[in-house]
């Protein structure tokens, strides 16, 4: 995991959930930073091989940190600011066609 340095400027705590678990980050964190600070080292399962993947570049280039945010899939965790009460979910493999669409 990543840990916060002890003598940082005070920033407000931000609460969110990741796969249903309650967590806290700080104002100014990206989602990726907040997840890494909470010991979440991998955020998705690769759609091709099923291998776990984690944030890699932290600058919006690699698309490894894709997560579902408040129901919207394929958001770049490193490019999305953490907000209070965000519901963040890992992405597990390729998306299935929902029953609603396939019928």
């Amino acid at each position, binding site marked *: 995991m990543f840990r916060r340095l002890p003598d*940082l400027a005070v920033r407000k705590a931000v609460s969110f959930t990741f796969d249903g678990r309650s967590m806290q980050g700080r104002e100014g964190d990206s989602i990726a930073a907040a997840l890494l600070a909470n010991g979440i080292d991998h955020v998705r399962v690769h759609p091709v091989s099923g291998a776990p993947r984690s944030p890699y*570049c932290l600058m919006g280039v690699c698309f490894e940190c894709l997560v579902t945010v408040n129901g919207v899939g394929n958001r770049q965790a490193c490019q999305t600011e953490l907000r209070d009460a965000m519901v963040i979910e890992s992405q597990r493999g390729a998306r299935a066609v929902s029953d609603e669409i396939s019928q």
Partner: protein
Amino acid sequence: MKTVTAHDLAETYDLVVVGAGPAGLSAAATAADHGVTVLLVDENASIGGQFYRAITTTPVEAPGLLGPDFWKGRPLAQRIAAAPVSYLPKAAVWNIVAPTGPAAGFEIGVSGGGAARVILAHQCILATGALERPFPVPGWTLPGVMTAGAAQTLLKESGLVPSGRTVLVGTGPLVYALAEKLAAAGAPPLAVLDTTIGANWSAALPWLPEFLISRFAVKGLRLLAALRRCTRVISGVSEVALDGTGQGVERIRFRRHGGAEETLAVDYALLHQGVIPNIALSCVAGCSHDWDPLQLCWFPTTDATFQSSVGGLAIAGDGAGIGGAESALIAGEIAAIGAIGRLGFVAADICDGLIAGKRRQWSRSLRGRRFIDHLYQPGRQFRIPANPSTIVCRCEEVTAGQIRRAVVEGGIGPNQVKAFLRSGMGPCQGRLCGQTVTELIAEARGVTPADVGYFHLRPPVKPVTLAELAALKR
């Protein structure tokens, strides 16, 4: 500076600047100071780009930790704050269409905050900077393996450091600077595995005198001395592989000068072997590119004002060739003066005089760079994987062996190979594999990367939702 949302945007701007790093900030401020209407679009939540990331918002207050070079971004941040610029943060530019006639403008597709817009710009400056060169070694997709730049970002933006056994792997100033910063922050790396090629010294040596009188010299030598005090430096690393389980990286295997295999148990491996221009938007806009045989990367060809082969579109800073933050800042000013001249805000002869002066300043800022480029040119084995099972395209999990086979089967360039294997078709659109695919094919065919070419990139270069597209005004 006025922060705007995608909803607030005007239909037309004299100048749109993409990217709020050193080049983009100085370009936007320079143009706005001359009365040009400027929109500055950026992906991040705050200004600074990568080098000056979070310059106005970082929680890291101890000035020594981020270093004096970082805080040099402060005057630039103050300058842009005072300039009459419209600033659209947290937004992605996903398309640029060059004007079809002299009266038309660039059509720029931009989205942010759930809304997409297509706006017009008479002139455009791309200041989208650089990205870290891919480092395709076995196991580089394991959780816990990140770039050195990623660790820099986490430190600047959130004051985070890796906790656990961390190794830095690679070559170039950023590796050493990060090791020193992590040590100063109380999280010294276990080791630096230096992949710098010893033989590079002979090519670098003729440039040593120029380096020694440059602004890099004192800084660089001080850094290298400090490095050996704060961590274990393992030089001459000629081979690297990362092993792990489903949970992440567990150990790094390496050889020195092709010798016996050694291992270290690790929790994090931070990779870096230099940076290359981010050419996604210059490709989509139709600019001509060339291969730099020294920096080993594609770059858009530009004129004295950094105008690309597409008239009215300039590329300033590392996006036009790697020079670093200080030279990017000057390049931004030059590109802005060029745009102001073409817009007719300042007479051409006055612009020419200003540009000549700034070009001299820009050349001086690059002094010492040649030495660095030669010395830290990454080794072939770390750019063009010999191991056939090494993943090259992370998004579609395409290996080096598959790409070599595709060449034998008639894939003469990146676009044919893409059609065969999907390499470059995933969410990153080839940003993390394009360079490797080009070099792999060139090696397999025995030709130069310039002969092989690059992916045809098509819009949108960043994801846009269907809802955003559907809501676009026509």
